[in-house]
């Protein structure tokens, strides 16, 4: 662990003035910066500029005849008309969409956390000689397409699929259940299934790094296994838990495909579906842009939190 000390700014200043002599390396001033130029330019043109275009469309006007968006690139000509209209909609007609989205994401992330933490904890602490095998099995879904994994559930949950067959065979349900048309439980299951691999691995990496001596110290000082877990392991893993929650809830918030594939019904519409539907219908360009902007505003704090926490964990690793 590197300890950032108060001497750090001083040291940095020293390094700056005596760079060549102190390090014994004679890089020209632009040597390292030049490495970053291609990717930086790429991001400027294909990441920053597109985001700005979205803002220009969201605050732009609409072609009166073709109803297509007319982006306005100068901030001083921006109009909030489109934005206001969508915001009105969000508090009225589509309020339930926002509520659904939050409900599904919160429930799915919580389920993910309980399951992922249990699995990650087991592998990190008790994996033993099976650790490599377990990790390989946990990494496998990473390399399997999200679509394939959803397709698997479409096959299984179909009215003629195996789930219904087993349920009717065991006489648990009289008729096959139509799982795939607008059931929130199916959508939440799909979200958990789709995103949990992204949570297990970072949690595992975090739990694996917790010093076993700390746990032993807890036990030595008289705490039982449960108490050691709740007083030592859990508090130590809090940053890992928060980061893992953010890493699954960010894509869930923008998810529309899980919902489309496993439900496709307006009963389970999420924010991502609103965006995707607006993209799909003509004349709705500005609306899509406003929704993208709203989603970005909703997610900016978790995104910044995640970036800060990962930056810190890189420093202390």
């Amino acid at each position, binding site marked *: 662990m590197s300890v950032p000390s108060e001497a750090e700014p001083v040291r940095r200043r020293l390094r700056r003035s005596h760079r060549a002599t102190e390090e014994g390396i004679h890089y020209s001033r632009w040597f390292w910066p030049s490495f970053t130029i291609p990717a930086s330019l790429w991001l400027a043109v*294909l990441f920053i500029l597109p985001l700005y275009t979205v803002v220009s469309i969201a605050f732009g006007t609409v072609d009166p005849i073709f109803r297509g968006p007319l982006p306005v690139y100068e901030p001083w000509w921006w109009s909030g008309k489109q934005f206001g209209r969508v915001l009105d909609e969000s508090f009225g007609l589509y309020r339930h969409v926002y509520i659904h989205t939050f409900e599904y994401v919160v429930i799915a992330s919580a389920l993910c956390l309980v399951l992922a933490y249990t699995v990650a904890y*087991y592998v990190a602490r008790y994996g033993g000689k099976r650790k490599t095998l377990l990790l390989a099995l946990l*990494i496998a879904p990473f390399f399997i397409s999200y679509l394939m994994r959803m397709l698997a559930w479409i096959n299984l949950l179909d009215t003629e699929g195996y789930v219904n067959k087993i349920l009717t065979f065991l006489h648990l349900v009289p008729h096959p259940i139509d799982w795939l048309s607008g059931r929130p439980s199916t959508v939440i299951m799909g979200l958990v299934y789709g995103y949990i691999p992204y949570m297990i691995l970072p949690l595992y990496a975090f739990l694996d790094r917790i010093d076993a001596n700390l746990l032993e110290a807890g036990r030595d000082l008289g705490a039982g296994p449960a108490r050691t877990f709740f007083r030592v392991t859990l508090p130590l893993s809090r940053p890992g838990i928060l980061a893992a929650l953010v890493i699954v809830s960010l894509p869930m918030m923008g998810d529309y495909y899980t919902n489309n594939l496993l439900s496709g019904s307006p009963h389970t519409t999420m924010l991502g579906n609103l965006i995707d539907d607006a993209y799909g219908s003509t004349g709705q360009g500005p609306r899509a842009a406003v929704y993208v902007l709203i989603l970005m505003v909703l997610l900016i704090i978790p995104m910044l939190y995640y970036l800060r926490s990962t930056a810190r964990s890189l420093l202390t690793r």
Partner: protein
Amino acid sequence: MSESVLTGPQTRAIPRARGGFVRRWVRNPWRRPTFLATVTWAYIAWSLIPLTIAIAVSFNRSRSSSSVNLFSVQWWWTDPSDSLLHDPELHSAVIQSLKLSLTTMVIAVPLGVAFALGIDRWRGRVASGANFVMLLSFVMPEIILGLSLFFVFSFLLKFVPLGSSAQILGLVTFQVSYPVIIVRARLLSIGKDYEEAAMDLGATPQQSIRAVLLPMLYPAIFASAAIVFADTIDDFVTVRYLSGPATSEPLSVKIYNFARGQPSPAINAAATFMLGSTIVVAAVAYLLYRAFTKGQRSGAGLGDLATQF
């Protein structure tokens, strides 16, 4: 059970330690590791069994998954019109998928590796700003990035037509952060000593990078290439928003379009094919990794890879 109670505490401990998994579980299902192990293996089964069934469906003779008649390659290539090989739409989608993934990999990996090198050694405000933007593009939900790119190509950068070129530009934007993150993690663990030693021995900065640093980065580079390939071949959000004519839709988009509408085992065959190509690329990357890291591996395995995510 009653016997062990009668024989007293010393002997009671022995059967508990020896009993099989099921017996131990019946005796006390809440004993910690047993409970955790059950959950873990149940999770693994839940995560992998649906996939094996989906793969099996592609080898099923019948169109519906309810009648099982396995080991037919009808949906792969035998069927003259509906199989993966002969359906013209699916056939061209396979080629488009491979084209997009390979091109994205070839562009994104060098861009990302160079950026990681530069950002690791060049400290300052501008550098950390560029790094921040890079990481922001990594955590940004794909729907936001995909639609913004769609807007920029339809309004501001109109000279890029929607289709393959727009898709590749978009995919590289989305993927370039993987090599950056993975290579930076590796650079942190390498440190500067090797390079400095090379330069003390008279190498120029360019030589020290090419002959010393780059070979040490090969594992990270191969890992990120495999991840970029796997992630690109699966991608359909960005690709779908940036696709122009139907011929520019790769397999992932076709699967998304067909999955609910007209499910057919050929779609499962398509998805299985994507899985297969990912495995091939991951295997090649792993073999290259082994070939290039002889002598510098330190018992590192999957655990090491997992910590990079």
